[in-house]
């Protein structure tokens, strides 16, 4: 098992996380994924990369530098995305019960290992 796959499995093991994946940031395509339940992995990759790209431009305009963690919270779940270098994003989707603090740490750890 590659380092990336191992990292994705660790993220998926966090309570409430429905799946995790590695995404090509410029293309919005799946690079690698782990146990995505009931969600179209291609949709996650495309939408997370698009949102991350727009937020990168907005954060730059606000003088905040590059985003390090992005967290989109909805009524029934959360999307987490962490850039891993210039080209990749580590992304996870969780339900309402997700331990977001732990998931965030695992994503950051995965991104450090991959970048």
């Amino acid at each position: 098992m590659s380092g990336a796959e191992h990292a994705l499995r660790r993220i998926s093991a966090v309570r409430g996380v429905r799946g995790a994946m590695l995404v090509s940031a410029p293309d919005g395509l799946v690079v690698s994924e782990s146990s995505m339940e009931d969600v179209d992995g291609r949709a996650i990759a495309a939408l997370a990369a698009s949102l991350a790209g727009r937020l990168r431009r907005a954060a730059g305009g606000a003088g905040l530098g590059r985003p390090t963690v992005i967290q989109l919270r909805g009524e029934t779940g959360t999307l987490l995305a962490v850039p891993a270098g210039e080209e990749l994003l580590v992304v996870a989707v969780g339900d309402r019960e997700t331990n977001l603090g732990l998931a965030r740490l695992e994503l950051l750890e995965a991104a450090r290992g991959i970048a």
Partner: protein
Amino acid sequence: MRVLEGWVSGPLSRFLDESAARLVLLMTSSGQVVAQHGFTRSVDVMSAAALGAGIMASTGELAHLMGSPRFGALVHQGTEQGLLLSGFDTPRGRWIGLVAFGPESSVGIVQLFFQQFTDEIAAATPPEEQRGPVLAENFEHELNASLRALFGR
């Protein structure tokens, strides 16, 4: 955006809105144009339709020779612009979509919403009217009528 048949407008508008595509050409597998967005000259549309249909036909043959199923889509990613060329089935036969997109979009976004678009097209396609065979003398007239409809002149 110009369409030959009104029912294509809704799905195509939604696709353009969601994908931020720059150019779209929708055609039958024989290269007959069904709708276009972003092209300004009819000659460009005709060339792109012929090339797109030709590429899909030749890659289909290539897949056949290699003993694999036909390719669903081809993607070219350039530095300034990307292209998606994708075939899909409709109640009126196989159609082809040619989509050009810039850095404001991405391959992933275009593919995601193109899939949604093709689903909507398949669901919205009305029953085809019975048509007689296309005669050579009618062909040019039909082509010109199509181009007039697509460019409004």
